[in-house]
């Protein structure tokens, strides 16, 4: 379903940046982040809506951060904010699953890159006025989290322009545009449903590995 590379962005939640403003000037960070802080979700993490997310025995609970994924239809290299969104062909909901970790100093490969830790919803054609106001996460049928994309410190066009300044976002790549710092935690046995206006809903259920 995804032919390219999946890139995500942390520390793009305005509320989180406010909370960490003091910590940013302390070790190990020593200065606030300048460039967007990116990570990669490799191919083993990709999953589809409806499939189980398997938790190995060492994970009591995981963070389930709902976000928006933008699929590139053409290469974005050194583009400006005005043209940035013209490179995006489709959008989907994504559930970025990770082992909770408060520290951003080292790449969180072990925490973020387990098999199946990125279920994706179906794709919708993208256009710049696509309404994506708020992403809602229900757990076991009850609303557990809601975040408006107005919380993004850098909006999609700004992100694409700033990232494409130093690397190409290629046709087929998927960009996850930010994670809410207060994402809910889930454990085995729970069901998560992510919705956002006209986008295709995303459903995942979490199972214990030894229960398979």
């Amino acid at each position: 379903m995804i032919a390219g590379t999946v890139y995500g962005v942390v520390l793009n939640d305005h509320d989180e940046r406010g909370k960490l403003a003091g910590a940013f000037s302390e070790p190990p960070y020593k200065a606030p982040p300048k460039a967007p802080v990116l990570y990669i979700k490799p191919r083993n993490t990709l999953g589809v809506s409806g499939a189980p997310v398997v938790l190995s025995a060492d994970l009591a609970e995981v963070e389930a951060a709902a976000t928006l994924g933008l699929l590139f239809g053409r290469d974005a290299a050194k583009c400006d904010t005005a043209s940035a969104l013209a490179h995006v062909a489709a959008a989907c909901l994504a559930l970025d699953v990770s082992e909770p970790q408060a520290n951003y100093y080292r790449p969180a490969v072990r925490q973020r890159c387990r098999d199946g830790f990125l279920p994706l919803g179906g794709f919708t054609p993208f256009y710049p006025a696509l309404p994506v106001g708020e992403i809602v996460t229900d757990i076991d049928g009850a609303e557990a989290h809601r975040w408006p994309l107005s919380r993004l410190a850098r909006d999609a066009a700004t992100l694409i322009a700033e990232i494409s300044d130093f690397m190409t976002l290629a046709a087929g790549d998927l960009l996850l545009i930010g994670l809410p710092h207060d994402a809910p935690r889930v454990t085995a046995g729970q069901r998560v449903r992510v919705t956002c206006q006209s986008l295709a809903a995303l459903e995942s259920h979490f199972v214990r590995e030894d229960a398979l």
Partner: protein
Amino acid sequence: MKRARIAHDGRIVWTEAIENGTALRLPDGETIAAADAIFLPPVTPGATIFALGLNYASHRAELGFKAKEPPLVFLKGPNTLVGHRGTTPRPADGNQMHPECELVAIIGTPARRVPAERALSYVAGYTIACDYAIREYLENYYRPNLRVKNRDATTPLGPFVVDAADFGDPQNLQIATRVNGQVVQKGTTADMVQSVADLIAYLSEFMTLMPGDMILTGTPEGVHFCAAGDSVECEIEGIGMLENRLVAAP
């Protein structure tokens, strides 16, 4: 067997290196001179690309790190790769841009929870990477951050993949980098903190490694800042030599 991935007559083909790497045999049996080939990065599209920081004892000491910690693993996108005899852009403000010669292990068999003792049997082959870094762009968030390590064409790869079956111990190889003919890195893979086998065991404990996935296993000491126009050669015993040239970024 040594293999190379090249562009030939409008398509991508894998070839077999023959006559000591001076000639390449195409799938249809035709032979061409290696000197005439357009080398591409020897990568399986879609492969996950792992890289290691601080994985040589000498390089750790050089950069001021002491204690042994979990492996410092980061990931790279395919936009970073460029083939043998390709060029790498050097930004005008990248005065602390330096090459890092690395042994690359390529996975051949799906690997999940593989113990280090059996891990090398999951390797299909080995190649060479030059994983450039630009220290001006380092930030202390997911360090080494993508602005340093995920720039287009900053990771030359190749020219050959040597089959693991034809390869001896990956932990006893001479590894060197030359810039304009001057040796700037010289070490041995015996100095890796985490061996190839250790790294496969570490990664496969929490995720599945798939055929084609690549592990860039880190670099020995020797931080040498380069200029546009520099010719950079990375050589690893038993694999060959990877050539690259730095050009001024537009």
